[in-house]
C-alpha cells in the first residue's frame, strides 16, 4: 500500500517478524500473509485511518476534541513501538549477537516469551487466574498496555478487523477461523448481511418473508 508510513524499514521488518510469531503461518495464513504489518503501519501513520466510513467508502476526518485525543494517543503508541522495537534488538543482541529480525523463529519466540510480562498461561487451565486479562472486559484501553501485549492486540486486530484497515487481506483472518462475515462493510450498512442461516435448523425458513439476503 503506497501510503504514509511510520516505521523505518528496519522497524517494519522487526515488527513484521514479531507479528509472524504471534499469529504464525502453518497450513493456513498467518499475520504475514494477512498483512498485519500494513495494518499497524497505517494505524501509527497519523489520524487519517482511525475510523472507516461505515459504508466502507473511505475514512472519517477527525475534528475538534476527537482529533486532539487521537493525536495524543498515536504519539503514546509510537513511543511504545519505538522503545519496544529497540528493546527486542537489545535483547536479541545480548542473547544471540544479532538483531531480532535475523534470528530463527525459535530464537524469536524465546525473546518474545521473555518480553511477555504476563507469561504464557498453560493451555487447559480451568480457571483464569489472570484477573487483569482481557477475557471478559468489554472495553479496551490500549495505551495502558506494555509493548508486547500491545503488539499482540494489534496483531489480532490486524488479522480479524475489517480488511479496510489494511490487514485481514481477502478476509484471510475470517476464513482461517470460519467466520462467515459480510462481503463488505457496505453489505452490513445496507442491511443485506444476515446470519440467520447460522441459527438453529429450520429457523431461517420460518422468518424468510421478513428478511432480505436469505
Amino acid at each position: 500500500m503506497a501510503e504514509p508510513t511510520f516505521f523505518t524499514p528496519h522497524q517494519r521488518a522487526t515488527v513484521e517478524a514479531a507479528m509472524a510469531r504471534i499469529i504464525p503461518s502453518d497450513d493456513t495464513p498467518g499475520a504475514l500473509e494477512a498483512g498485519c504489518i500494513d495494518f499497524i503501519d497505517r494505524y501509527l501513520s497519523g489520524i487519517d485511518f482511525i475510523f472507516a466510513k461505515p459504508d466502507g467508502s473511505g475514512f472519517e476526518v477527525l475534528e475538534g476534541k476527537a482529533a486532539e485525543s487521537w493525536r495524543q494517543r498515536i504519539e503514546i503508541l509510537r513511543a511504545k513501538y519505538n522503545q519496544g522495537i529497540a528493546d527486542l534488538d537489545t535483547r536479541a543482541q545480548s542473547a544471540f549477537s544479532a538483531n531480532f529480525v535475523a534470528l530463527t523463529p525459535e530464537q524469536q519466540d524465546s525473546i518474545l516469551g521473555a518480553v511477555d510480562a504476563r507469561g504464557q498461561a498453560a493451555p487447559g487451565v480451568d480457571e483464569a487466574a489472570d484477573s487483569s486479562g482481557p477475557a471478559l472486559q468489554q472495553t479496551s484501553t490500549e495505551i495502558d498496555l506494555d509493548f508486547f501485549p500491545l503488539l499482540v492486540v494489534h496483531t489480532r486486530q490486524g488479522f480479524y478487523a475489517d480488511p479496510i484497515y489494511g490487514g485481514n487481506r481477502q478476509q484471510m483472518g475470517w476464513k482461517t477461523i470460519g467466520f462467515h462475515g459480510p462481503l463488505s462493510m457496505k453489505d452490513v450498512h445496507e442491511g443485506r448481511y444476515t446470519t440467520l442461516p447460522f441459527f438453529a435448523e429450520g429457523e431461517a425458513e420460518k422468518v424468510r418473508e421478513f428478511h432480505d439476503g436469505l
Partner: protein
Amino acid sequence: MAFNNKPARAEAVIIGAGASGSTAAKVLCEAGVKVVALEKGPWRKRESFGGDELANINRYNLWPDPLLNPRTWRETASSRARIDQFCPVPQMVGGGTVHWQGWLPRVTQNDFRLRTIAGDLAGASLADWPITYDELEPYYLKVEWAFGVSGQAGANHFESHRSGGYPCPPMPVSRYVEKFHKGCSALGWNSFPLPQAALSRPYNGRRATVISAFAQQHGDPTGTRSSALNIFVPDAAATGNYDLRPQCVVRELTLDRQGRIKAAIYEDGEGNLFEQEADLFILACGAVETARLLLLSKSGRFPNGVANGNDLVGRNVTFHEYSAAVGTYEDPIYAWAGGGYVSASTFQHYEHDPSRGFVSGGHLAVAGVGIPLPINWHLPGAPTWGAEAKKIDREYFNHSLAVAMVLHDMPQHENRVDLDDKVVDAWGLPVARITLKPHRNDLDQGRYLIDRAADILEASGALDIRKVYADRITGNCSHQHGTARMGDDPESSVLDRWCRAHEVENLYVVDGSPFPTATGANPTLTIMANAWRVADKIVAERGNTT
C-alpha cells in the same frame, strides 16, 4: 462566568437523551409539555453506524474516549485512585441503547422488598424500594409495547404477574440458545427466550430487525433495532415539543432563592456558555454522571452538592458484573450469529434462598464469545499468542459459547461515586471517582452463579468448560444504579417515591440512580418503566396546577 446566551425558559429541562431521558421526553412531550433536552454527546443518525469491531469496540467510536472522559477507581477511601474506564456507557443521543442488543427481562416482585425478604446483611445497606412491582407493572407493559419487545409471556416461571403479553413472538432460535435450553432442561430448570428489544416480525410500521453478526456493542445502520434512538427520540421529536440539543455539556445546576433549581449551565460544541432556566429539571445522565453533576453543583445551601444535605448522593452505588463459564462443543455453534446475543435465560437461581448462604441471586443467559470476532476475546486461561493461540482461535471460534451471569451486587454505604480531586475531563471538570470494594456476598453469589452456568454447559454436552469467577467488580457491563436512592424517609434516601429530590422540589432523577438495590437482571427495562411512571406523575401534577 459570563453567559453569552440565555435561551428562552423551558417548562422542563431533561439532562441526557439516553434510555431514561428519552422515555421521560416522550411522555412529557406527548402530553404537551415543552421540553429542552441537553445531551452531552452527538445526535447520530443510523447512516453513521457500521459493522466495524475495531472502530466500535477498540477505538471509542461508540464507547466514551477515556482521554476525554476519564474516570478513576480506588478500592477504599484510603487507597489511591487510578485512572480507570469504570462502567462506561456510550455518551450520545440514545445512550447505551445505541449499541446494546437489548435484553429486557422484568425483575420480580421480591426485588422491590429485598430487605424484608433477606433481612439485614452485615456491611451492606439493603433497603426495600418505596414502590412495588405492581405499581411499576403497567409501565413495563407500556415500554414493551412501545418498543415491540419480542418475547413469550409465561415462559419464565419465576416472572411476577403480567397484565398483558408481548407484542412480538420470540426471536428466532440460535444454536447457542438450543444448547442452553437443552442444558437447563436436562437439569430440570426452567429456561425461556430472553425478551429482546428487537422485532421478530414487522410491527407498528417497522420492519423485522436485521440479524447481523455486528450487533452487541455495535450501532445499528438499519434502524431496525428497538432503542431510545430509534423509538423514543423520534416519538418525542414528532410532537414538536422536544428541543433536543446535542453536544451540550451541563457543567452545573444553579439554585434560586427558594432553594429550587434555577438553571442548567451548559457549554455547547463551540465552547459557548448558556444558562437554561426551566420550571423543573430531570436528570437522566446514568447513575454515575447524574451523581457527578449533583456533586458538581455546589452552593451556599448545598456546599457538598445539590440534594446532598445528608451526604448520600453517590453512595450505595451498584454495578452488577458480567462474567461467564465458557463451553466448547463438538458441533458448530456459530455463537457470533446474531451478534451472540439472541439469547435465552433462566431465573432458576434468581430469587433469594437462605439455604445458599448468601443473599439473592441473578439470572443466567447464553451469549457468544466474540463481539463478534476474537479481537477482544480470548479463551480464558489460554495463551494469547503463538501456534497454540492460533489453534484455539481456529478450533474454538465456531464451537464455543458462554453462559453468563448478571451479578446482583449488594449496596454498601462506603461504595460510592464522588469527585476526583486531581483528574479533570476535557471540559476541565473533576471526573467521577469510583470507590468500590465487593461485598463478600458478591463474591460468594458470583461463584455460585458461575458454577451453575458450568452445570448448564455440562448438561448440554460441552466437552471443555472454563469458569471465570468475578474476583473484582469492574463495571464491565455498563449497568449502574443506586447513587440517588429513592425512599420514603428523607434521612436515608435522596429521592422520594416519585424520584423527586426530598430537598429540592423541582428536581427529578429518572435513570438507574433511584434504585435502592441492583436487582439481578439487566436494568434498562426497569429504568425506562420507572422513567415513564415518574413522567406520568409530572404530567398529572402539571394538570393539577394549571
